[in-house]
């Protein structure tokens, strides 16, 4: 890579990377360096990703036959509840903000660290403390209320460890509030000189909007779970129908958080994809300002649509109509983003490294996920399709097809910057394609069986649906393999991988202007920014006097 050499020379001798700033466990557990906290988060959420994965692997195996294989109904219920709780709160919500967000935000805005480094470490300890509660609940028998904790099942009739699980989620909620507060303060106050709001990379906009949602939505979840604990532990009749309570009120409070929660999962994914596609298409993002306003619109309107989860829950017809209308409005910004990503490819110099494969996969699968969301936003169709496998397929298309693909794209894209090592490109592309195929094999059949009337959370099911379930389980096996592969070749690259240059992908953005892995204080000299983000252009463009932006070579010669 020709320009990599230039970047290295500019930085002078290789500064000591943040990894060398202490090798003892204590140095890792008491660090306030945002990069190390990102690594701590990465390790813990990968652990929980595989715990949740094993739980659902057993469920998919169990569903191979209509009348179960090796689990009792109770064990089955606890497994899918566990899968929900762990995947939503212990993997998906922190997945991109807490790992890539923590690592890259200060780098991308040219700061030494986040605004409140100690609060950042507290955020990780809150995550660990919440995880302890949940693992205790898991080990001592699990919880059988689903991840939704609907009353009166969770308060009066569930036999599992509801209080421990609810307390675990309550605590981990404050971990994401702490991250949200930290990021908003950082983006507002620690931007490098010259980095105005509309020169911020879209990943930083993604972090800003997701932090807004995290800070404003999570407290309502905390309160709803606190009320469930109060009712279950002290018998206070908050949702108790016998004494006038209304179980639908819990659903209002729960979904007021849980729908913005799915935007907490998708906004950072959109940010990552908006970084990856321009880099590998060598084109500036199409319609930058529309993309920014789309992110903000999703974050704000996302708070007004939660009622579409409750069309059949006993809500009034007028509320169904209002929430249905608002759910259609919130779908518009997502559609704009898909068109803009696609338009970015126009007239580009497209290469297909692993991050690009994952990103293009994201755009495709997110489109299908978003469109099926329109089905569920229209009341008559939702009345038939809700609580069936149609809904399961819809939200897995968004969460797994969308957020996990974008997480993988980001992981591959910034792996050289984080570890200073290159991963093996061939294996990564193979894993990306396998993920895409395994994913479709798993969840496309679920759309079909869902519309046919296969309810969700069913241990025994009518044998009419066995064919679809077998297809889905086989797909899940392929997906499991595809998810284990990165673990292997990333681990391998840590030891044997090629040394990564400061900017292996020739990408724009301040994080690529420092060495890989970056020094503890991120930048030896505070960078100045004069140029728009994504200043990719296939013509050689020298900009500004002190040329902070790396020179764009005439399309890589290598």
């Amino acid at each position, binding site marked *: 890579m020709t320009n990599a050499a230039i970047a290295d020379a500019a930085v002078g001798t290789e500064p000591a990377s943040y990894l060398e700033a202490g090798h003892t466990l204590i140095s890792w557990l008491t660090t306030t360096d945002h990069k190390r906290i990102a690594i701590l988060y990465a390790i813990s959420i990968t652990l929980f990703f595989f715990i949740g994965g094993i739980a659902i692997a057993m469920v998919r195996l169990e569903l191979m036959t209509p009348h179960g294989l090796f689990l009792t109904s109770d064990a089955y219920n606890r497994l899918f509840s566990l899968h929900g709780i762990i995947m939503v709160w212990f993997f998906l919500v922190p997945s991109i903000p807490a790992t890539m967000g923590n690592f890259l935000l200060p780098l991308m805005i040219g700061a030494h660290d986040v605004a409140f480094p100690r609060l950042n470490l507290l955020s990780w300890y809150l995550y660990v403390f919440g995880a302890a509660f949940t693992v205790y609940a898991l080990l001592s028998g699990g919880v059988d209320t689903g991840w939704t904790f609907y009353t009166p099942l969770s308060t009066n009739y569930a036999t599992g460890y509801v209080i421990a699980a609810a307390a675990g989620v309550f605590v981990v909620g404050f971990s994401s509030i702490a991250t949200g507060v930290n990021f908003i303060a950082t983006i507002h106050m620690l931007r490098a000189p010259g980095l105005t709001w509309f020169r911020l990379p879209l990943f930083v906009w993604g972090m800003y909007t997701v932090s807004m949602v995290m800070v*404003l939505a999570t407290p309502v979840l905390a309160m709803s779970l606190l009320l469930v604990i109060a009712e279950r532990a002290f018998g206070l009749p908050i949702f108790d129908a016998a004494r006038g309570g209304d179980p*639908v*009120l819990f659903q209002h409070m729960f979904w007021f958080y849980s729908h913005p929660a799915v935007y907490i999962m998708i906004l950072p994914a959109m940010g990552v994809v908006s970084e990856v596609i321009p880099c590998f298409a060598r084109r500036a993002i199409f319609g930058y300002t529309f993309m920014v306003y789309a992110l903000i619109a999703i974050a704000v309107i996302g708070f007004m649509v*939660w009622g579409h989860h409750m069309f059949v829950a*006993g809500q*009034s017809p007028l509320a169904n109509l209002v*929430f249905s209308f608002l759910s259609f409005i919130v779908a518009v910004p997502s559609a704009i983003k898909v068109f803009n990503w696609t338009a970015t490819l126009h007239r580009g110099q497209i290469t297909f490294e692993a991050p690009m494969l994952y990103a293009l996969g994201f755009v495709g699968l997110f489109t299908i996920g978003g469109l099926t969301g329109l089905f569920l936003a229209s009341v008559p169709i939702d009345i038939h399709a809700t609580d069936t496998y149609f809904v399961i397929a819809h939200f897995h298309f968004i969460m797994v097809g969308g957020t996990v693909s974008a997480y993988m794209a980001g992981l591959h894209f910034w792996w050289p910057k984080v570890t200073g090592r290159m991963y093996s490109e061939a294996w990564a592309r193979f894993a990306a394609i396998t993920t895409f195929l395994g994913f479709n094999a798993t969840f496309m059949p679920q759309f079909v069986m869902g519309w046919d009337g296969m309810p969700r959370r069913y241990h025994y099911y009518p044998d009419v649906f066995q064919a679809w379930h077998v297809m889905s389980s086989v797909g899940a096996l392929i997906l499991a393999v595809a998810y284990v592969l990165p673990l292997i070749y990333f681990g391998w690259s840590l030891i044997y991988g090629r040394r990564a240059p400061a900017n292996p992908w020739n990408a724009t953005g301040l994080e690529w202007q420092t060495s890989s892995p970056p020094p503890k204080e991120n930048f030896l000299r505070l960078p100045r920014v004069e140029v728009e983000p994504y200043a990719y252009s296939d013509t050689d463009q020298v900009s500004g006097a002190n040329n902070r932006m790396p020179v764009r070579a005439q399309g890589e010669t290598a």
Partner: protein
Amino acid sequence: MTNSHGRRVHVWLRPIAVWVALVLLGLASLGSAYLPLNAFNTSLNLAIAGTMVILLWLFLMDLVGSEALVRLIAVAGLLWLSFMFALTLSDYFSRACEGPGDVPPATCVNQKTNRGAF
């Protein structure tokens, strides 16, 4: 910080004035609760509580003297709260109570009957 004499008096005077206002408002809301105003009672109490909070936030928490961003954040919390209240209550207020006996009074707001007692 400790420059002009005016600044020093102002520093002592404002909190005291705000305290007096808050106490008076508290007494007013307490007193008004005992007057038989039925529906108007609740809205009066809430209005007084609202003004007390605004006074506290503007002067004692010095929102007046702080940055625009901080004021924006203070308002954002209340704005998001209004989203939650507006849409949830839109569900409860629009649940039919009579007519085809859609939903019994247990969880529906019977506008005609309990307008007075609100």
